[in-house]
């Protein structure tokens, strides 16, 4: 690690790289940076199960692979259960120390794979489920998912009729399964992401990490703004960083920075059709959700 320069932020991130270059991600892809950071923590004794999603493409075409660990591609709706099958097989074969990770997009997690995910959580399967959330079906060309925020443009929620429904609250729902660990994270906070990965890796049972991942082509944002957008998602309270242990112990990892939501939306073309009144509504919704989170934290503190 380099010496600290005054005013420069440094993070305690492992220097080892498990992932290699040669992958097929778009520039500025938050999901790809998430994987690179995750593998640094998870290490080489990791197996990834990846369903249909951008990441099924990013890894590279047969016979290449860029992740540097075994990767089991699986059907769109089967990340959690494929990982479960791999886990049990490795257990019966005496390879209990290997971390089995389901790595899926928001579509594969919030929507089509939700049944299998909920079932794996209910059985408290010993897997680490990581959802990189770019808030739409990006692989198929930016269609809405139930993780798409209210008001956002996608190709199935055009600007004249943007998405009307609020985003599904995945972490709360998984928390309600009383799994050992459910947490949010995002790439602008690699120290927080690291700590959560490390913590999750060393736990047994079902663990869920929900990583907000900017997507320049899908969010209509600048490639160079991905980290900024990721940070603003937290600073505006749009995507709070928090953890739930055993379904009831809520912990907030970042206080509110009090930044208005418009600072976040203005960097993304997917929100550019929103009127001032609509943006005000969005701010109200964000504040409302934040208040609920604060109340939960207070109740179980």
């Amino acid at each position, binding site marked *: 690690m380099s010496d600290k320069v005054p005013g420069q932020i440094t993070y305690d991130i492992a220097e080892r790289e498990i992932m290699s270059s040669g992958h097929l991600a778009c520039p500025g892809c938050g999901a790809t940076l998430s994987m690179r950071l995750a593998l640094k923590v998870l290490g080489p004794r990791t197996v990834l199960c990846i369903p249909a999603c951008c990441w099924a493409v990013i*890894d*590279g*075409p047969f016979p290449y*692979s860029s992740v540097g660990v*075994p990767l089991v591609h699986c059907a769109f709706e089967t990340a959690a*259960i494929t990982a479960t099958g791999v886990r049990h097989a490795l*257990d*019966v074969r005496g390879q209990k120390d290997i971390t089995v990770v389901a790595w899926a997009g928001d579509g594969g997690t919030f929507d089509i794979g939700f*049944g299998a995910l909920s079932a794996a959580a*209910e059985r408290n399967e010993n897997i680490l489920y990581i959802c990189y959330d770019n808030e739409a079906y990006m692989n198929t060309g930016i269609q809405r998912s139930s993780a798409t925020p209210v008001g956002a443009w996608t190709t199935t929620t055009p600007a004249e009729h943007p998405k009307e429904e609020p985003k599904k609250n995945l972490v709360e729902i998984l928390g309600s399964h009383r799994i050992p660990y459910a947490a949010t994270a995002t790439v602008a906070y690699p120290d927080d992401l690291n700590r959560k990965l490390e913590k999750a890796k060393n736990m047994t049972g079902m663990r869920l990490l929900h990583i907000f991942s900017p997507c320049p082509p899908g969010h209509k944002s600048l490639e160079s703004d991905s980290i900024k957008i990721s940070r603003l998602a937290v600073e505006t309270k749009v995507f709070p960083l928090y953890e739930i242990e055993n379904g009831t112990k809520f912990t907030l990892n970042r206080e509110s920075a009090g930044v208005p939501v418009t600072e976040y939306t203005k960097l993304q073309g997917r929100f550019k059709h929103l009127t001032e009144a609509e943006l005000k509504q969005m701010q109200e919704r964000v504040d409302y959700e934040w208040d609920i989170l604060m109340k939960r934290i207070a109740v179980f503190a």
Partner: protein
Amino acid sequence: MEKVLTGNQSVSWGAMRARAQVIAAYPITPQTTIIEELASLVSDGKLDARFIKVESEHSALAACIGAEQAGARSFTATSAQGLALMHELIHWASLARLPIVMADVNRAMAPGWTIWTDQNDSLSERDTGWLQFYCESNQEVLDTVLLAYKIGERIKLPVMLILDAFFLSHTAEAVNIPEPEEADAFLPPYEGDLIVDVENPRAFGGMAGVDYYQEFRYMQQEAMLEGLKVVEEVGKEFGERFGRHYGLIEPYRCEDAEAIIVTSGTVTSTARDVIDEWRDRGESVGLLKMRTLRPFPIDLVRETLRGVPKVGVIDRNICPGFGGIWAQEIKAAMYDVDQADRPDIYGFIAGLGGRDVTPITVNEVLEKTLHPEKIEKHLNWIALKA
């Protein structure tokens, strides 16, 4: 050891003797007792395996895919709606070249809701790249579980063994169960070579461009063709060890036959009795039992039916808009036989949705096949209510 077992128990005992390591299944009548028994065998410690109690058949097969890819011998069982729900993954298991074994208890598709037997569920999976064995007795069911693993693991393809709802699944008969050591000697532990290995990381099933995909299919087809040999070879070895012989087909009293009827599943046992009666009366009729649908034993079928004047195929299934599926297969196999030796092939649909196929049914099929003047060649419904 001899025990009185239902068809479903025979499946469970087969999976136990095969030492399945990961079992994932979801209940559906008439498969349920298979997995109930396996669940208790596992929880009693009589079978050293993991039983994953999944929330759907789709997840059952996905779990087996994950487990098999990570090197464990896996097993599942289902019926009808459950099999159809798995469809996407049935293709997946074969293209991923994973030798999973699944029992399908043949049950007719809804609606109307029915739990009774016919073959439309498994035949709808004909083109998915699984080997399919249709069983006639509980003994054959148990033996086929062991055969299935040995064959599938040799050629890296998944295997479905199929038994009729209730006629086998819930009917008890004496079954010889191989001792554990005998079964182990026949079927050693699974040693997959292309499996998850952190020391040698690979991606399994990634994007295949136009440069590769067709070759994957070619290799799958080659494996099926190899399967034709392996089924016979492994069946022979099984016969030498256990005294019970299984091949791709079973011709019965087909010498100099004027007419042969073709059957699969439990209809075969009924037909065998009827053939005996006719033969005892001096009639030259025979029976061809189809045990294997895939790989389809084209050469053996041709050998058996070449030069036979008339063939009647009993289909406990229907491909709506065409006809009986076995008839279609048999006709396709016989097309390349010289015209002079090519039989007239008559299709009969019978026993759908569990309707009994009795000796009366089989007699009618034989009569009509021998005297076809008043019937359709392609498709004839038996015991259809007016």
